């Protein structure tokens, strides 16, 4: 077996049948990979689908007590039979060459290389101005995949579509299960990855469709939780420049900036005023989450 695909279930509402069907269409031979779906109680709608799918493809589900994506992914690696682990999000529908792209890359690349595939909203989902902005600005995953071929940050990592050897995953210390949401666990992992000099590569052929009707309201809640988690990450890894610009500003200033952007957009909405509004509302939610979280003990660095 060449790869174990680990899918941690999150509280998403996408049709998981479509995800499984896409794994059936892979150019990688079915015998070359397995799929391990890990459920920490996030979803109750997939068990029957997985039972049906397991008759025709090498898929199995494991249930865990713990909560959060980090715990689920760690458990998935524990159950994996292959040395090559491919972490995939449960709302990512892989294109036919995805598994093969990860396998081929690791056959050719060094043992400490990490492969990262992109995810794009389907054209229909991109009709929504907020989703389009969220994707193109790079704020959805921390990178604008449309620009990845030009400017790939070699330390970028997200757990939605990523592959590495099990030995490297263990060397880096697995995902930190203290992160109990489906966010920031991968960013924190990327800090350890960079510190060890591990670099990531962009795999265009490992492309996914992102089937998630992300809304502004949902994203504001995500930003608030990210702010909470950021306090924990900062306590452990020190000042993170990209976040510090948000939480070091006085909160009332961030509030005023958000209100100004909303008013400006209300007066005459353009692509620019919308973008400014979206950005400032997410900034505000992040800052509020950060300031609301309890201070964390500072770990040794």
């Amino acid at each position, binding site marked *: 077996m060449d790869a174990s695909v680990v899918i941690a279930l999150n509280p998403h509402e996408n049709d998981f049948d479509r995800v499984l069907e896409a794994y059936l269409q892979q*150019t990688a031979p079915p015998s070359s990979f397995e799929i391990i779906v890990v459920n920490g109680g996030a979803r109750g709608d997939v068990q029957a689908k997985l039972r049906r799918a397991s008759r025709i493809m090498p898929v199995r589900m494991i249930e865990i007590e713990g909560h959060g994506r980090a715990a689920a992914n760690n458990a998935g690696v524990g159950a994996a039979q292959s040395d090559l682990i491919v972490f995939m999000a449960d709302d990512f529908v892989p294109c036919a060459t995805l598994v093969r792209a990860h396998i081929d*890359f690791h056959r*050719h690349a060094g043992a400490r290389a990490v*492969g990262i595939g992109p995810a794009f909203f389907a054209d229909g989902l991109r009709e929504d101005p907020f989703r389009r902005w969220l994707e193109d600005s790079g704020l959805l995953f921390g990178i*604008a995949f449309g*620009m990845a071929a030009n400017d790939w940050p070699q330390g970028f990592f997200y757990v939605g579509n990523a592959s590495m050897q099990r030995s490297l995953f263990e060397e880096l210390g697995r995902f930190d299960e203290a992160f109990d949401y489906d966010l920031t666990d991968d960013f924190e992992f990327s800090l350890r990855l960079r510190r060890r000099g591990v670099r990531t590569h962009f795999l265009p052929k490992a492309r996914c469709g992102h089937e998630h009707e992300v809304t502004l309201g949902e994203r504001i809640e995500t930003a608030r939780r990210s702010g909470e988690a950021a306090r924990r990450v900062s306590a452990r890894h020190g000042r993170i420049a990209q976040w510090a610009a948000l939480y070091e500003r006085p909160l009332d200033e961030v509030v005023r900036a958000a209100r100004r952007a909303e008013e400006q957009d209300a007066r005459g909405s353009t692509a*620019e005023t919308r973008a400014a509004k979206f950005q400032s509302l997410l900034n505000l939610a992040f800052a509020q989450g950060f300031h609301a979280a309890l201070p964390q003990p500072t770990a040794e660095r």
Partner: protein
Amino acid sequence: MNAPNQAVARNAACPCGSGRRFKACCGNRAGSVVSAPGERLADRLQRALALQQGGDLVQAEAAYREILEHGPDLADAVHMLGVIHLQAGNHAEALRRLHQAAELFHWEFPTVRYNLGLAISALLSGRNRTQVERLWRAYDGWRDDLRAERRDIAPCVSIVVAGFDHAAAIEAALQSAFRQSYPRIELIVVDDGAVERLRPMLARSPHRWRIHARQKGGVASAINDAIAQSSGEYVSVLVGADRLAPTRVETMVDAVARTGAAWGFSRGTLVGSDGVELTAKAALPTFDLAYCADDIAASDTVGVSLLSRNPVISASALFFSRAVFDELGGFREHPPCYDWDFCLRASIIAEPVYVPSAEYGHSLPSGSGSPQAEEAARLASRTTFAVFYDAALATHQAENPFAPVPAVWGERFFAQVLARGHATSLPASVLRDLLVRAAAAAGVALR
């Protein structure tokens, strides 16, 4: 993304990659600021640039907009506003602004062209996904088929030894050729005047050998002449003071000849004059050999990876059938990167195979890694790619079904080319054409 005027010494090479000094290229564009109506405007522009460089895009955008209220055609402000939109992911607006800037600069400012290329690339990169995914699937199928073919053949391989400049280098190179584990080899050694002294050594060769008297010309034509004297079905080149790994020919026969592929290349390492492997970072600080080699495997296809940069650090990486060589008419002295030029042209004929193991050691010429050498290499790369670009556009029917040309990959070809910063080497007319395509794709009305 490139922003001009970022604390670059006036006599340093321009960061836009034009090959000129900063003061004679982008640095000279400060003139457009000076010619703005009044000194205050120039100060404002500097402040806006400082905000942008500090990462405060919202304030920087507001500052540029304010400047443009006073001087709507101030090219630097229009350009940098376009860059801000590019950074913020607003590609359609970036395209509009950068197009305006390109017109204001009469399409002569390399940095504007580079950034405009990125905006076009971003808008084209997600296009024709169905066609691209079909090609990816077909490519996986082609690779599967490669595994099954011609397992039992043992073709004669000609190792062509050329381009060495002193006897010590040729001795080490020849020794590496003698030690090959593959049995059916002939050696063709190009005589540059040192060979007579090497006859006793050649006499100990386990392979049959021949000396080819060197004609006038460079390394490319020396290799061509030597291959003309060879009789092998496949050719492995060995140039300069490079050395082949003992398994080199056997590995390439397995990966190329025995799979039915027509040509390929392998990974290499950098070695010192003593043959000991160098760390790439120490030898070539600005070129990450290992990362670039890994990136070949990350590309759409091995052929498409050739569009980024020259993936072979030396012609010693190459292994090809005589048929491919003959069809191409051999290596060319011009453009300057003769090995990359060969790969790019060969990729139109046949899809290459990449061998990830290090099958040769490349001995860097003296002076490698110096700023002058790197600048010369950049210029050589640009010239080489520009020559290929014309050939790619003119290829309407490629023999290789995965050839890295527009006729095969459509808009993805252009997106890849522009994403890798080649916009500065394309003619303005081509960039204009791509701009129109991208604008149509994004629904942007161009003035």
